[in-house]
């Protein structure tokens, strides 16, 4: 039972990692706290529902996995260009509030397009059902989630460490003043980063949907948890996001066993504790 709960916690951590990674990335490179990040998560889930529903079956799921990040990434790029780019260099407050406005807009767009009833996204056959291991039954999908997150984490790490884009991003995170001096096209970089972050969030939305329902309010629900993760782990650090996601996911799952009503509160208590001890988060970059 404990083991099962631990697995649940890990798979939840996997979800959170996907979403929080995008948030942390955007903040690290662009110094923007994107409240609309949850919106991309939600939109991703809903688009997945439509695509998977239209095509049907396992193929539909695969199609969604490919299409969703691309579509949402594109939407995000446009959003960044229209709503956020004019605000660079302005007060951070304005940027924050702009993302808040965006969240409101996305919320209603989703409501308009898909209505208020909950939707379902079914996982393909091969990923459903239990897997047996030394007498215990574990949900196959949870394992898939964990695996997907690990793969993605590795992919992100590779991107950051090995590619030109990754090098630019890392420069943006640690030496923002240097960026333009070394000839990086900063606006374009920001658009790419923002789109990438959104795509990650959308993937998070997609892969977490089969375990629950897809409905309005997902955006608010996830953004709070994602914030908890990045606060704990530290904004701008991939390692921190991973650690934070693990902490939150596991603590939440384990708390459900003993203090079901206070599970979320436990997470927040940890967040407050971390902030009291290390205001930038466990691995966070200092604010300046």
């Amino acid at each position, binding site marked *: 039972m404990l083991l099962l709960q631990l697995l649940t916690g890990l798979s939840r951590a996997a979800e959170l990692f996907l979403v929080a990674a995008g948030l942390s990335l955007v903040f690290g490179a662009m*110094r923007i*706290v994107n409240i609309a990040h949850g919106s991309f998560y939600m939109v991703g889930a809903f688009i997945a529902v439509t695509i998977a529903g239209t095509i049907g079956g396992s193929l539909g799921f695969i199609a969604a996995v490919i299409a969703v990040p691309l579509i949402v990434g594109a939407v995000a790029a446009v959003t960044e260009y229209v*709503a956020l780019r*004019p*605000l660079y*260099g*302005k*007060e*951070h*407050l*304005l940027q*924050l*509030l*702009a993302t*808040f*406005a*965006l*969240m*409101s*807009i*996305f*919320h*209603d*767009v989703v*409501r*308009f397009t898909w209505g208020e009833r909950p939707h379902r996204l079914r996982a393909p056959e091969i990923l459903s059902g239990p897997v047996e291991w030394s007498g215990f039954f574990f949900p196959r999908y949870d394992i898939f989630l964990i695996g997907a997150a690990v793969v993605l984490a590795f992919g992100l790490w590779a991107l950051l460490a090995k590619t030109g884009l990754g090098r630019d991003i890392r420069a943006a995170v640690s030496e923002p003043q240097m960026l333009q001096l070394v000839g990086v096209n900063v606006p374009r970089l920001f658009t790419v980063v923002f789109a990438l972050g959104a795509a990650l969030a959308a993937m998070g939305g997609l892969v977490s949907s089969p375990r629950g329902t897809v409905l309005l309010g997902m955006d*608010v629900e996830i953004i*709070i948890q994602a*914030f*908890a993760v*990045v*606060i704990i782990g530290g*904004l701008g650090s991939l390692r921190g996001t991973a650690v934070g996601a693990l902490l939150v996911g596991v603590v939440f799952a384990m708390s459900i066993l003993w203090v079901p*009503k*206070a599970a*979320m*509160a436990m997470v*927040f*208590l940890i*967040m*407050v504790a971390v*902030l*009291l001890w290390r*205001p*930038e*988060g466990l691995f*966070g970059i*200092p*604010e*300046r």
Partner: protein
Amino acid sequence: MSRVMSSAQKDRLFTPARIGWSLLLLVALLAPLVVGERQLFLLMTVMTLAVFATSYNIILGYTGLVSFAHGAFYGVGAYSTTLVWLHLGWSPLLGFALAPFVSGAVAYISGLVAFRAVRLYFALLTLGIGQLIYIIVFQWRSVTHGDDGIHGMDLPTLLMPATNRYYFLLGATVLALVLMAISMRSPLGATLQAIRENPDRVGFLGVKVKRYSLAAFTLGGAFAGYAGAMFALMNRGSFPLLMHWTTSAEPIFVSLIGGLNSFAGPLVGAIVLGLLRDYITRHFLYWSAVLGVVLLVIILRMPGGIVEASQNLSGWVRRRSEGNGNGSRSEEAGNGQAGNGQERDDQ
């Protein structure tokens, strides 16, 4: 009322600002004679929002802090009123008097935690604290009735008719606004603005910045509770959604619309938002999107909000009518300085 006035303006008795306030008060006093009960409740909602938003202005507009916990303090105020009625049998009026102190205390404690963090993380931390309070209220069914909320609070018979309630709340609103205005026009208010502009420099002047920020946070929280109590009285009840962080968004929106740079901004914004929302939600389902678009437009085009835009306009008009600019004015309409004025690149 702009925060930087020329000496010419101060000496006149009938400043545009004073005329505006008086007219507003007059309209408010006469309203029950012309509108029906439903509209009275709408006006009461607007008044509550105005107090709530102005209390937030202390934190955001004056001190420059973004907090998402403000809705929680608002809810605490509402629940203070209803809970003491429900469990202790106290009169809601007593609860109303108590609410600001309870909210102030909660805000103070939250502030002690939240100010440990640097500015950007501060916002996120207030988010967490606000949600924590929300969750507590939501889950603690035995005391707060959780999701169901508390309803049907007995008001003193004098306050049962809508018109009487309206005048009571109007008086409460005026009192709150006057108190907040006095404290913000004081040296404390000026210091808070300086903290917003350049916290490091204020420290170099020998001022303990964190202490003042905490004071502003507490004061704002107390008045948020005051507004919450107003809500409880108006609706004869309270429910958890009041404390959700999205409630904290409302004063932000209102301040943006009305303008972050003046005392009257949130009031103007509250009136505009309250009336607009009521109208639109009755005819059109997608209020959030409309709000979001309006906000984006304001952020992108008129970061100073309506009040500053109108100040710019009146300043421009005045300059045109006076010929050459006499002395120095701080509102410069034509040269695109219609920003919040925070030209220092923060952090």
